[in-house]
Protein backbone atom coordinates (compact mmCIF):
# COMPACT_ATOMS: atom_id res chain seq x y z
CA UNK A 1 0.00 0.00 0.00
CA UNK A 2 2.52 2.63 1.14
CA UNK A 3 4.33 4.83 0.33
CA UNK A 4 1.11 6.56 -0.70
CA UNK A 5 2.36 9.25 -3.08
CA UNK A 6 4.89 7.13 -5.05
CA UNK A 7 2.26 4.39 -5.33
CA UNK A 8 -0.33 6.82 -6.68
CA UNK A 9 -2.80 6.66 -3.76
CA UNK A 10 -2.49 10.42 -3.36
CA UNK A 11 -2.18 12.55 -6.48
CA UNK A 12 0.38 15.25 -7.08
CA UNK A 13 -1.99 18.13 -6.31
CA UNK A 14 -2.01 17.23 -2.63
CA UNK A 15 1.75 16.98 -2.44
CA UNK A 16 2.40 20.52 -1.23
CA UNK A 17 -0.58 20.64 1.15
CA UNK A 18 0.81 17.51 2.78
CA UNK A 19 4.30 19.07 2.81
CA UNK A 20 3.03 22.07 4.76
CA UNK A 21 1.04 19.93 7.22
CA UNK A 22 3.97 17.57 7.91
CA UNK A 23 6.24 20.62 8.21
CA UNK A 24 3.91 22.18 10.78
CA UNK A 25 4.02 19.00 12.85
CA UNK A 26 7.83 18.89 12.53
CA UNK A 27 8.24 22.54 13.56
CA UNK A 28 5.81 22.11 16.44
CA UNK A 29 7.65 19.08 17.86
CA UNK A 30 11.07 20.76 17.49
CA UNK A 31 9.93 23.95 19.23
CA UNK A 32 7.93 22.19 21.93
CA UNK A 33 10.98 20.01 22.72
CA UNK A 34 13.14 23.10 23.27
CA UNK A 35 15.08 23.06 19.98
CA UNK A 36 14.35 26.73 19.33
CA UNK A 37 17.00 27.63 21.93
CA UNK A 38 20.65 27.41 20.91
CA UNK A 39 21.62 27.08 24.57
CA UNK A 40 19.50 23.95 24.90
CA UNK A 41 21.06 22.54 21.74
CA UNK A 42 24.67 23.34 22.65
CA UNK A 43 24.10 21.77 26.07
CA UNK A 44 24.67 18.31 24.66
CA UNK A 45 28.32 19.16 23.94
CA UNK A 46 28.99 20.46 27.46
CA UNK A 47 26.95 17.97 29.44
CA UNK A 48 24.42 20.40 30.93
CA UNK A 49 21.46 19.50 28.72
CA UNK A 50 21.06 16.30 26.72
CA UNK A 51 17.66 17.11 25.22
CA UNK A 52 19.02 16.92 21.64
CA UNK A 53 20.40 13.47 22.14
CA UNK A 54 17.24 12.20 23.84
CA UNK A 55 14.83 13.49 21.23
CA UNK A 56 17.09 12.55 18.32
CA UNK A 57 17.82 8.97 19.38
CA UNK A 58 14.28 8.27 20.54
CA UNK A 59 12.93 9.49 17.20
CA UNK A 60 15.46 7.40 15.31
CA UNK A 61 14.71 4.11 17.04
CA UNK A 62 10.93 4.69 16.96
CA UNK A 63 11.10 5.32 13.20
CA UNK A 64 13.44 2.36 12.61
CA UNK A 65 11.35 -0.14 14.55
CA UNK A 66 8.17 1.36 13.09
CA UNK A 67 9.42 0.87 9.55
CA UNK A 68 10.12 -2.78 10.27
CA UNK A 69 6.58 -3.27 11.63
CA UNK A 70 5.05 -1.42 8.66
CA UNK A 71 7.03 -3.71 6.36
CA UNK A 72 6.03 -6.81 8.36
CA UNK A 73 2.34 -5.94 8.20
CA UNK A 74 2.67 -5.24 4.48
CA UNK A 75 1.67 -1.57 4.86
CA UNK A 76 4.86 -0.18 3.39
CA UNK A 77 7.01 -1.42 0.55
CA UNK A 78 10.51 -0.71 1.85
CA UNK A 79 11.99 -1.22 -1.61
CA UNK A 80 10.11 1.90 -2.74
CA UNK A 81 11.35 4.30 -0.09
CA UNK A 82 14.20 6.71 -0.68
CA UNK A 83 17.59 5.53 0.54
CA UNK A 84 20.08 8.35 0.91
CA UNK A 85 23.04 7.74 -1.44
CA UNK A 86 26.48 7.23 0.06
CA UNK A 87 29.46 9.31 -1.05
CA UNK A 88 31.94 8.40 1.66
CA UNK A 89 34.53 11.20 1.51
CA UNK A 90 32.34 14.23 0.86
CA UNK A 91 29.90 13.01 3.52
CA UNK A 92 32.64 12.74 6.14
CA UNK A 93 34.04 16.16 5.20
CA UNK A 94 30.55 17.68 5.00
CA UNK A 95 29.65 16.22 8.41
CA UNK A 96 32.84 17.52 10.00
CA UNK A 97 32.15 21.01 8.59
CA UNK A 98 28.53 20.82 9.80
CA UNK A 99 29.76 19.78 13.24
CA UNK A 100 31.88 22.95 13.38
CA UNK A 101 28.90 24.99 12.19
CA UNK A 102 26.79 23.41 14.94
CA UNK A 103 29.14 24.25 17.81
CA UNK A 104 29.92 27.76 16.52
CA UNK A 105 26.40 28.67 15.38
CA UNK A 106 24.37 26.79 17.98
CA UNK A 107 21.72 25.57 15.54
CA UNK A 108 21.15 23.22 12.67
CA UNK A 109 18.93 24.29 9.75
CA UNK A 110 15.51 23.00 10.92
CA UNK A 111 15.98 24.22 14.49
CA UNK A 112 17.00 27.70 13.33
CA UNK A 113 13.67 28.04 11.48
CA UNK A 114 11.76 27.39 14.71
CA UNK A 115 14.01 29.88 16.52
CA UNK A 116 13.05 32.55 13.97
CA UNK A 117 9.39 31.71 14.54
CA UNK A 118 9.55 32.71 18.20
CA UNK A 119 11.68 35.81 17.68
CA UNK A 120 15.31 34.70 18.17
CA UNK A 121 17.62 36.95 16.19
CA UNK A 122 20.51 34.48 16.46
CA UNK A 123 18.31 31.96 14.64
CA UNK A 124 17.61 34.49 11.90
CA UNK A 125 21.29 35.35 11.51
CA UNK A 126 22.20 31.64 11.44
CA UNK A 127 19.69 31.09 8.61
CA UNK A 128 21.16 34.01 6.66
CA UNK A 129 24.52 32.29 7.19
CA UNK A 130 23.09 29.06 5.74
CA UNK A 131 22.07 30.97 2.64
CA UNK A 132 25.52 32.55 2.26
CA UNK A 133 27.27 29.23 2.88
CA UNK A 134 25.22 27.39 0.25
CA UNK A 135 25.72 30.29 -2.17
CA UNK A 136 29.50 30.03 -1.69
CA UNK A 137 29.23 26.29 -2.27
CA UNK A 138 27.27 26.59 -5.52
CA UNK A 139 29.53 29.33 -6.89
CA UNK A 140 32.74 27.47 -6.07
CA UNK A 141 31.33 24.08 -7.12
CA UNK A 142 33.64 23.71 -10.18
CA UNK A 143 36.61 23.64 -7.75
CA UNK A 144 35.46 20.46 -6.06
CA UNK A 145 33.02 18.82 -8.47
CA UNK A 146 35.22 15.69 -8.60
CA UNK A 147 35.49 15.47 -4.84
CA UNK A 148 31.72 15.97 -4.54
CA UNK A 149 31.05 12.58 -6.18
CA UNK A 150 34.05 10.71 -4.75
CA UNK A 151 33.57 7.52 -2.74
CA UNK A 152 30.32 6.79 -4.58
CA UNK A 153 28.85 3.56 -3.20
CA UNK A 154 25.36 3.89 -4.68
CA UNK A 155 22.50 3.68 -2.16
CA UNK A 156 23.62 1.02 0.31
CA UNK A 157 21.73 0.29 3.51
CA UNK A 158 23.40 -0.64 6.79
CA UNK A 159 22.30 -4.21 6.02
CA UNK A 160 24.16 -4.17 2.69
CA UNK A 161 27.33 -2.86 4.30
CA UNK A 162 27.42 -4.99 7.45
CA UNK A 163 25.57 -8.13 6.32
CA UNK A 164 23.50 -7.93 9.54
CA UNK A 165 19.71 -8.15 9.19
CA UNK A 166 17.52 -5.07 9.73
CA UNK A 167 15.85 -6.24 12.98
CA UNK A 168 19.24 -6.82 14.59
CA UNK A 169 20.47 -3.42 13.46
CA UNK A 170 17.36 -1.79 14.94
CA UNK A 171 17.93 -3.79 18.12
CA UNK A 172 21.56 -2.65 18.30
CA UNK A 173 20.56 1.01 17.87
CA UNK A 174 17.88 0.62 20.55
CA UNK A 175 20.32 -1.00 22.94
CA UNK A 176 22.96 1.71 22.37
CA UNK A 177 20.34 4.45 22.72
CA UNK A 178 19.13 3.10 26.07
CA UNK A 179 22.70 2.82 27.35
CA UNK A 180 23.45 6.37 26.22
CA UNK A 181 20.24 7.70 27.86
CA UNK A 182 21.29 6.18 31.16
CA UNK A 183 24.92 7.39 31.01
CA UNK A 184 23.98 10.93 29.98
CA UNK A 185 21.42 11.12 32.78
CA UNK A 186 24.24 10.52 35.25
CA UNK A 187 26.53 13.05 33.52
CA UNK A 188 23.80 15.69 33.44
CA UNK A 189 23.14 15.32 37.17
CA UNK A 190 26.80 15.90 37.98
CA UNK A 191 27.29 18.83 35.60
CA UNK A 192 24.10 20.61 36.67
CA UNK A 193 25.29 20.69 40.27
CA UNK A 194 28.10 23.00 39.21
CA UNK A 195 26.28 25.00 36.53
CA UNK A 196 24.40 28.01 37.83
CA UNK A 197 24.28 30.44 34.93
CA UNK A 198 21.70 28.48 32.98
CA UNK A 199 17.96 28.24 33.49
CA UNK A 200 16.63 24.75 32.98
Amino acid at each position, binding site marked *: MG*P*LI*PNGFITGDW*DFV*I*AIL*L*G*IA*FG*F*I*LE*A*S*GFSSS*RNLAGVFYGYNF*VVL*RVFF*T*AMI*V*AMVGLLYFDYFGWLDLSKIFI*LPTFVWP*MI*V*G*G*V*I*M*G*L*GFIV*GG*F*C*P*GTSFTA*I*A*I*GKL*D*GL*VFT*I*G*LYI*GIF*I*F*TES*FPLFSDFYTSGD*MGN*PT*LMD*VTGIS*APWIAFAFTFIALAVFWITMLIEKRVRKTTTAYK*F
Partner: protein
Amino acid sequence: MHSNKLEENKQRYLNPYFGGVLLGLLILLTIFITGRGLGASGSIKSAVVTTTNVIAPTHAQNNDYDKKFISDDHSPMYNWLVFESFGILLGGLLSGILFGRVKKFRIDKGPNITNKSRLIAAVIGGMLFGFGSQFGRGCTSGAALSGTATFAFGGLIVLLAIFGSAFLYAWFFRKLWI
Protein backbone atom coordinates in the same frame (compact mmCIF):
# COMPACT_ATOMS: atom_id res chain seq x y z
CA MET B 1 7.74 37.77 44.35
CA HIS B 2 10.88 35.74 44.00
CA SER B 3 9.02 32.54 43.25
CA ASN B 4 6.92 34.38 40.68
CA LYS B 5 10.05 35.37 38.82
CA LEU B 6 11.32 31.80 38.89
CA GLU B 7 8.02 30.61 37.54
CA GLU B 8 8.23 33.10 34.70
CA ASN B 9 11.71 31.98 33.76
CA LYS B 10 10.95 28.32 33.81
CA GLN B 11 10.48 27.04 30.29
CA ARG B 12 7.81 24.46 29.65
CA TYR B 13 9.00 21.86 27.21
CA LEU B 14 7.74 18.43 26.28
CA ASN B 15 9.38 15.52 28.01
CA PRO B 16 12.28 14.78 25.59
CA TYR B 17 11.43 11.08 25.27
CA PHE B 18 7.80 11.95 24.54
CA GLY B 19 8.95 14.54 21.99
CA GLY B 20 11.24 11.90 20.49
CA VAL B 21 8.41 9.37 20.15
CA LEU B 22 6.25 12.03 18.45
CA LEU B 23 9.10 12.91 16.08
CA GLY B 24 9.76 9.24 15.31
CA LEU B 25 6.08 8.66 14.52
CA LEU B 26 6.09 11.78 12.34
CA ILE B 27 9.09 10.46 10.36
CA LEU B 28 7.27 7.16 9.97
CA LEU B 29 4.12 8.92 8.75
CA THR B 30 6.15 11.09 6.37
CA ILE B 31 7.86 8.03 4.86
CA PHE B 32 4.51 6.19 4.68
CA ILE B 33 2.98 9.08 2.72
CA THR B 34 5.86 10.42 0.63
CA GLY B 35 8.41 7.59 0.52
CA ARG B 36 11.10 9.76 2.11
CA GLY B 37 11.85 11.51 5.38
CA LEU B 38 11.95 15.10 6.60
CA GLY B 39 14.52 17.74 5.66
CA ALA B 40 15.48 21.37 6.08
CA SER B 41 18.66 22.52 4.31
CA GLY B 42 17.19 21.64 0.89
CA SER B 43 14.80 24.59 1.09
CA ILE B 44 17.62 27.09 1.53
CA LYS B 45 19.42 25.47 -1.40
CA SER B 46 16.26 26.02 -3.50
CA ALA B 47 16.25 29.67 -2.43
CA VAL B 48 19.91 30.08 -3.42
CA VAL B 49 19.42 28.42 -6.82
CA THR B 50 16.29 30.50 -7.45
CA THR B 51 18.06 33.77 -6.63
CA THR B 52 20.97 32.95 -8.93
CA ASN B 53 18.59 31.84 -11.67
CA VAL B 54 16.56 35.04 -11.46
CA ILE B 55 19.48 37.48 -11.24
CA ALA B 56 21.87 35.73 -13.64
CA PRO B 57 20.02 32.98 -15.54
CA THR B 58 22.82 32.16 -17.98
CA HIS B 59 25.31 31.98 -15.13
CA ALA B 60 23.04 29.61 -13.18
CA GLN B 61 22.37 27.38 -16.18
CA ASN B 62 26.11 27.12 -16.81
CA ASN B 63 26.81 26.15 -13.20
CA ASP B 64 26.96 22.35 -12.92
CA TYR B 65 25.48 22.43 -9.43
CA ASP B 66 22.71 25.00 -9.95
CA LYS B 67 21.53 23.43 -13.17
CA LYS B 68 20.70 20.13 -11.47
CA PHE B 69 17.85 21.93 -9.71
CA ILE B 70 16.61 24.14 -12.53
CA SER B 71 13.87 22.94 -14.83
CA ASP B 72 11.94 24.66 -17.61
CA ASP B 73 8.44 24.07 -16.33
CA HIS B 74 8.67 25.35 -12.76
CA SER B 75 10.73 27.44 -10.36
CA PRO B 76 13.16 25.64 -7.97
CA MET B 77 10.98 27.10 -5.19
CA TYR B 78 8.17 24.79 -6.31
CA ASN B 79 9.70 22.05 -4.26
CA TRP B 80 8.49 19.74 -1.49
CA LEU B 81 11.10 20.83 1.04
CA VAL B 82 10.34 24.54 0.51
CA PHE B 83 6.71 23.96 1.47
CA GLU B 84 7.72 21.69 4.32
CA SER B 85 10.16 24.32 5.67
CA PHE B 86 7.43 26.95 5.54
CA GLY B 87 5.44 24.49 7.65
CA ILE B 88 8.35 24.21 10.14
CA LEU B 89 8.17 27.97 10.61
CA LEU B 90 4.38 27.86 11.15
CA GLY B 91 4.60 24.86 13.47
CA GLY B 92 7.34 26.54 15.51
CA LEU B 93 5.18 29.64 15.79
CA LEU B 94 2.17 27.58 16.84
CA SER B 95 4.11 25.82 19.58
CA GLY B 96 5.72 29.10 20.64
CA ILE B 97 2.29 30.74 21.00
CA LEU B 98 0.89 27.74 22.87
CA PHE B 99 3.77 27.63 25.38
CA GLY B 100 4.13 31.42 25.64
CA ARG B 101 7.56 31.68 24.04
CA VAL B 102 6.73 34.08 21.21
CA LYS B 103 8.18 37.38 22.41
CA LYS B 104 9.88 40.41 20.95
CA PHE B 105 13.16 39.92 19.10
CA ARG B 106 15.91 38.67 21.35
CA ILE B 107 19.24 36.86 21.30
CA ASP B 108 20.07 33.58 23.02
CA LYS B 109 23.68 33.24 24.09
CA GLY B 110 26.16 31.91 26.60
CA PRO B 111 26.70 33.99 29.76
CA ASN B 112 30.21 35.16 28.88
CA ILE B 113 29.91 36.65 25.43
CA THR B 114 28.37 39.83 23.99
CA ASN B 115 25.38 39.96 21.66
CA LYS B 116 27.68 41.04 18.88
CA SER B 117 29.98 38.02 19.28
CA ARG B 118 26.95 35.73 19.40
CA LEU B 119 25.59 37.08 16.14
CA ILE B 120 28.98 36.89 14.40
CA ALA B 121 29.34 33.28 15.60
CA ALA B 122 25.79 32.52 14.43
CA VAL B 123 26.39 33.79 10.90
CA ILE B 124 29.73 31.96 10.61
CA GLY B 125 28.18 28.79 12.04
CA GLY B 126 25.33 29.06 9.57
CA MET B 127 27.74 29.49 6.66
CA LEU B 128 29.72 26.43 7.68
CA PHE B 129 26.57 24.37 8.22
CA GLY B 130 25.11 25.42 4.87
CA PHE B 131 28.35 24.71 3.03
CA GLY B 132 28.84 21.33 4.70
CA SER B 133 25.24 20.25 4.14
CA GLN B 134 25.79 20.25 0.38
CA PHE B 135 28.69 17.79 0.70
CA GLY B 136 26.68 15.76 3.22
CA ARG B 137 23.66 15.45 0.91
CA GLY B 138 21.54 16.92 3.66
CA CYS B 139 21.73 18.19 7.22
CA THR B 140 20.83 16.84 10.65
CA SER B 141 17.18 16.24 9.67
CA GLY B 142 17.46 14.96 6.11
CA ALA B 143 20.72 13.03 6.19
CA ALA B 144 21.57 12.21 9.82
CA LEU B 145 18.07 11.59 11.25
CA SER B 146 15.86 10.53 8.33
CA GLY B 147 18.81 8.87 6.57
CA THR B 148 19.84 6.71 9.50
CA ALA B 149 16.22 5.96 10.41
CA THR B 150 15.76 4.47 6.92
CA PHE B 151 18.90 2.36 7.49
CA ALA B 152 20.94 4.32 4.91
CA PHE B 153 24.69 3.88 5.39
CA GLY B 154 25.29 7.47 4.26
CA GLY B 155 22.95 8.75 6.98
CA LEU B 156 25.02 7.10 9.69
CA ILE B 157 28.25 8.54 8.23
CA VAL B 158 26.81 12.07 8.39
CA LEU B 159 25.37 11.48 11.87
CA LEU B 160 28.69 10.29 13.31
CA ALA B 161 30.68 12.99 11.51
CA ILE B 162 28.47 15.85 12.76
CA PHE B 163 28.14 14.80 16.39
CA GLY B 164 31.56 13.14 16.71
CA SER B 165 33.39 16.19 15.39
CA ALA B 166 31.27 18.67 17.36
CA PHE B 167 32.26 16.91 20.60
CA LEU B 168 35.91 17.31 19.60
CA TYR B 169 35.49 21.02 18.84
CA ALA B 170 33.44 21.73 21.97
CA TRP B 171 36.44 22.39 24.21
CA PHE B 172 37.79 25.09 21.88
CA PHE B 173 34.49 26.94 21.68
CA ARG B 174 33.45 26.62 25.33
CA LYS B 175 33.64 30.42 25.81
CA LEU B 176 30.65 30.74 23.48
CA TRP B 177 28.39 28.58 25.62
CA ILE B 178 29.53 28.14 29.23
